[in-house]
């Protein structure tokens, strides 16, 4: 088993993709220097600055350049350093990347990946801590991947790069330096759109995304000590969503908690809850409960931010509510 981190796995996966395919290029602010979280460390040294392209602070144009490059034969991986800055690039992503294949009647493909990261907990305050992935899930034409571990990065990032569509990969800054062991033989790429059952259980289903997967595992271990076996499912991609895996689990357990770090109101958990109740309303033994952040911006002050970010305790509260 090889010890690694989420951030190092991103760099290693990008390097492998660039070795395998000369069309893969990386663009973004400071990417040739490794970036603030070292997710592109070593790439410029190996592949040169023609393929690992530092950009000015021009999020919209960076995204637009990637779209044009993707339409003309490259496979760009563009980095938006914080998802909080995605607003600057949204026109490019929403009106450009997401619709090109459709509006051209299938003539144009936009095989690009936009990597970005979100999440609170590092005293980044309201403009460097958000979880805005649900904005992107509302746009037909985009795929949205939310890797919850180094293992998932290794499994999903190659598939995102190989995909003929624009794929947004939303990483979690709080996971970047968490240590993890991966098999020595490596992790094979896995298709987008398949959930992973992280833990088996028959009493309640917890669907958790990104860093909340770890929190759900912690909550499930605690529940197990009290005789409750939770099934933990990581959707891994929000678009496309693997509803059958989630619905099959809920049909068996009859109870569902959906947990994400994003603001609960209008978050992707609402979509999962709605789709599950449509798919298996008569299997449900209790109302679906969501876990998410409060409807306020992320505060700076440590006691306030700690209270703001949801975790295992909030998941446990939610499970108690669905168990009645």
């Amino acid at each position: 088993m090889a010890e690694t981190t989420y951030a190092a796995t991103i760099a290693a996966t990008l390097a492998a993709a660039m070795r395998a395919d000369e069309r893969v290029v990386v663009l973004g602010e400071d990417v040739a220097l490794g970036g603030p979280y070292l997710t592109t460390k070593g790439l410029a040294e190996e592949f040169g600055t023609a393929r690992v392209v530092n950009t000015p602070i021009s999020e919209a144009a960076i995204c637009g350049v990637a779209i044009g490059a993707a339409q003309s034969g490259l496979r760009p991986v563009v980095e938006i350093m914080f998802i909080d800055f995605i607003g600057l690039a949204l026109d490019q992503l929403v009106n450009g990347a997401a619709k090109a294949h459709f509006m051209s009647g299938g003539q144009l493909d936009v095989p690009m990946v936009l990597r970005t990261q979100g999440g609170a907990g590092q005293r980044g305050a309201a403009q460097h801590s958000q979880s805005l992935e649900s904005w992107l899930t509302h746009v037909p034409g985009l795929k949205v991947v939310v890797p919850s571990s180094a293992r998932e990065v290794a499994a999903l990032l190659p598939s995102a790069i190989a995909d003929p569509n624009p794929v947004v990969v939303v990483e979690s800054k709080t996971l970047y330096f968490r240590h993890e062991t991966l098999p020595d033989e490596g992790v094979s790429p896995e298709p987008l759109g398949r959930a992973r059952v992280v833990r088996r259980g028959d009493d309640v289903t917890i669907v958790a995304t990104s860093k909340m997967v770890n929190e759900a595992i912690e909550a499930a271990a605690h529940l197990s000590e009290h005789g409750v076996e939770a099934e933990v499912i990581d959707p891994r991609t929000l678009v496309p969503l693997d509803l059958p895996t989630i619905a099959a689990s809920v049909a068996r357990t009859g109870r569902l908690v959906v947990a994400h770090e994003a603001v609960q109101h209008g978050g992707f958990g609402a979509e999962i809850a709605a789709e599950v109740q449509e798919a298996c309303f008569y299997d449900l033994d209790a109302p679906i409960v969501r876990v998410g952040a409060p409807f306020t911006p992320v505060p700076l002050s440590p006691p306030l931010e700690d209270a703001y970010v949801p975790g295992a305790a909030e998941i446990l509260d939610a499970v108690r509510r669905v168990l009645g």
Partner: protein
Amino acid sequence: MAGGAAGDPGSGGGLDAAVAERLLETMWRIRAFEERLEPLKRSSMVLGLTHLSIGQEAVAAGVCTQLRDDEPVYSNHRANGHALAKGVDMGRLLAELMGRAEGCCRGLGGSMHVVDVAHGFLGATGVVGGNLPFAVGSALAGRLLGQDRPAVVFFGDGAAQTGIFAETLNLASLWQVPVVLVCENNGFAEFTPRSAHTRVERVSDLAAPFRVPAATVDGNDVAQVHAAFAHALALARAGSGPFLLECLTHRLSGHYVGDPGGYRAAVEDEAWRARDPIERLVRQAAAAGWFDAERSRAAEAAARDEVEAAVAFAASSPFPDLGLPAELTYAR
């Protein structure tokens, strides 16, 4: 380079008879197509916002007729002329504007989103300025893939006030990618004259701070446009950095068919009509001995015949299947 009094035919420099005839035919095809669009739009055969470029044909013709199919063009919402001049089939273009299955985008895009990859027409956009960086990306891809071809993007003077314009100029200059940015400065951004939007007199004035070479020409003189673009294209094909070509022109119709139009009371259309790019080319051709007015009338007649054939083709094309949107939301 800009200027020329109304009625001044210009020098016609740089053209020969064959090129001049091709430009004449291209401008007539655009003019005839768009004049036919207006009634088709008013009878709801043509759908959505329909932005005409009548009066601006010299820019599309002077630029696009010099490009190969593998040299991509991005365009804006006023795209008909660019598309036709780049080689998009007139019937398939009109079918697209009518939302038909045989449209070049299978009826999913419409006039603001015309794409024809086979002819290197990579697309119009309905968001002003939105695809300026696409051209930089395409040119960057060409360079990295070892292809000897630049990219071209059309934009209006209104787009020069967007943030993405400044970001694009900066990146194009920083990376020295072979991209030609062609501005059609028609003096109006939607309903509002340029003077109400900016104190910058010329769009080309914005190039110098980014160290992008630029030129401003009389965009109603197809010979000037052709010569200036030939210069920019030669540089770009040789692998130089970006070039900004500003063409001063004038649209002789509203922002879109059926727009309120009252704002145009302030516009001296009659003065501009005297600078009609087609009539000017005919006068240049007569002076140079290339062809006479009869040749122009023949080109017009041929263009109007082509338009009627396009109308017949498009009107007989079926609407797309209801399943098409779901089929084409994602590439497979």
